[in-house]
């Protein structure tokens, strides 16, 4: 029987060859993730249940990254709940500030997620790991509590939708532009409760960093997963792997609910305008959109290649007078690499600030909150009303290249206008 990659991975974790869309299953998970916002509820539920020990201390990851380093007293309390639980349960993969990074950049970097894995995370952007050819999906805190207890999770098997990208990308066009274009095309519920599968020659040439960016935003089209089949680029990234893994590929006869084919040869850099990630326009159509702030970072675009592109554009330039440029590396490893390569010097000399890893401003937590009437261009993933602060502020979303170019001019600008 032919199956898609999603149906095979979910099947393998229920002891079957594959499962069918619409089926309800209870599957064994390989890894469960929580952060400083979602894990405190999960830990409270775990304790309320009367459970004493987690199902497997090596299959739980706790990352205080959203409001950490703690932005205030109440956040500090939430982070402390994680630290104490990790100590009590001897959870090895607890990442204190100093080792901490933004979870969805950190877990692949630490090789905690591998191809073929079934991963749940109490964070919607858990779908990022689909870029490794795994089935990774966001769940809630109660789901996480349940996984702590018995290592299982319930799933409704999603139908799969295939996206095939053909052609050759123009200069400055990246994985971020592909995913923004896709969400603009299908809408914020265009893949509601589906597994998106990204494929085609353009995906085959994308770096792992850009693939993570694409899978990361599958949730912004309503998808349960955003999967890219593992290939040589994936294997180079995960090897040497700390444990065995299995590569799953979709069968040629597998059933897709829909197949979208895009020729992306003429695609311009894309920008999502307020207040939905689907409100996407080519950068050239946006004239005179004045900015107060630019943020480069997040689980979507805070990886080393993102910082390299931004630094390349900003080198020897100054950010526009009165504009705040905030650059946030996603992990400590990326931070150190950016220091070594001189990227930090470029950002600081340009008039930007360089922060410790945190989700911070992306969700309006800290480190760059917008007040009434302010406008920000961010390399993050959501631009809902009030996402980064005041409900009377505006967030635009773009690639690091567009963000860096715009920081220089103070208006939304294509990178080809600078370099």
């Amino acid at each position, binding site marked *: 029987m032919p199956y898609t990659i999603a149906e095979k991975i979910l099947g393998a974790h229920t002891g079957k060859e594959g499962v069918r869309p619409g089926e309800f299953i209870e599957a064994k998970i390989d890894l469960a993730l929580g952060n400083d916002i979602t894990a405190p509820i999960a830990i409270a539920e775990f304790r309320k249940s009367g459970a004493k020990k987690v199902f497997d201390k090596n299959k739980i990851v706790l990352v205080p990254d959203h409001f950490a380093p703690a932005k205030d007293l109440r956040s500090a309390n939430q982070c402390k709940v994680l630290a104490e639980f990790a100590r009590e349960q001897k959870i090895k993969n607890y990442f204190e500030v100093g080792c901490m990074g933004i979870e969805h950049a950190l877990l692949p970097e630490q090789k905690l997620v591998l191809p073929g894995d079934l991963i749940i995370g109490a964070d919607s952007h*858990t779908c990022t790991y689909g870029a490794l050819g795994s089935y990774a999906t966001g769940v809630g805190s109660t789901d996480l509590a349940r996984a702590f207890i018995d290592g299982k999770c319930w799933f409704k098997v999603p139908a799969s939708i295939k996206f095939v990208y053909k052609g050759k990308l123009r200069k400055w066009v990246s994985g971020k532009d592909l995913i923004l274009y896709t969400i603009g095309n299908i809408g914020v519920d265009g893949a*509601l409760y589906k597994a998106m599968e990204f494929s085609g020659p353009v995906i085959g040439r994308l770096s792992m960093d850009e693939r993570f960016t694409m899978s990361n935003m599958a949730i912004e089209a*309503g998808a349960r997963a955003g999967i890219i089949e593992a290939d040589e680029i994936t294997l180079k990234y995960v090897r040497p792997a700390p444990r065995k893994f299995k590569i799953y590929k979709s069968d040629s006869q597998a059933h897709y609910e829909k197949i979208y084919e895009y020729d992306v040869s003429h695609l311009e850099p894309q920008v999502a305008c307020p207040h939905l990630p689907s409100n996407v326009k080519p950068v050239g159509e946006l004239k005179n959109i004045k900015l107060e702030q630019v943020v480069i970072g997040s689980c979507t675009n805070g990886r080393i290649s993102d910082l390299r592109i931004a630094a390349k554009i900003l080198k020897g330039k100054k950010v526009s007078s009165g504009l705040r440029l905030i650059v946030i590396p996603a992990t400590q490893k990326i931070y150190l690499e950016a220091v070594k390569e001189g990227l930090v010097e470029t950002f600081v000399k340009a008039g930007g600030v360089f922060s410790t890893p945190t989700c911070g401003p992306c969700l309006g937590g800290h480190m760059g909150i917008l007040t009434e009437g302010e406008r920000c261009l961010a390399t993050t993933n959501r631009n809902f009303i009030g996402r980064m602060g005041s409900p009377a502020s505006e967030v635009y979303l773009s690639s690091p290249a567009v963000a860096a170019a715009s920081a220089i001019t103070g208006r939304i600008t294509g990178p080809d206008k600078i370099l």
Partner: protein
Amino acid sequence: MIIKGKVHKFGSDINTDDIIAAKYLVSTDARELGSHCMENIAPGFLQKVKPGDIIVAGKNFGCGSSREHAPLAIKGSGISAVLAKSFAGIFFRNAINIGLPFLELENADEISEGDELVIDLSAGSVKNLTRNKNYATQPFPGFLQDIVTEGGLINYVKKRKV
């Protein structure tokens, strides 16, 4: 379970930042979260809500983040059920897991702000008393009904653990 209340109408793609802004996620208390429910998009909503009232929305309700604080905030605001044309995946799970009553109703557009509804959750039926209209919805599969009737996911799991 029968729910009777007045309708508070919302559009499509109501996201979790609309339901409860991230700055309030330093709390896990439903009543505290509830006191900020929908404040960015519908100031004044909370003053109008009476216990038993019902949210009726368009497609993709609860899109965005995984925060379970969103269904908790809705419960804490005094709202007793949500009807929408469709729900986002994680919100759907969370609502089941914490026991926030909800139904998918294709004809949600025919219901207006202030209408009085009676919902029979186990039958999946919706009666609009103001407009004298009846709707039948697809009941949840047995597996999900078991989670809800057993008082949420954790109780469901406890009962099955040897």
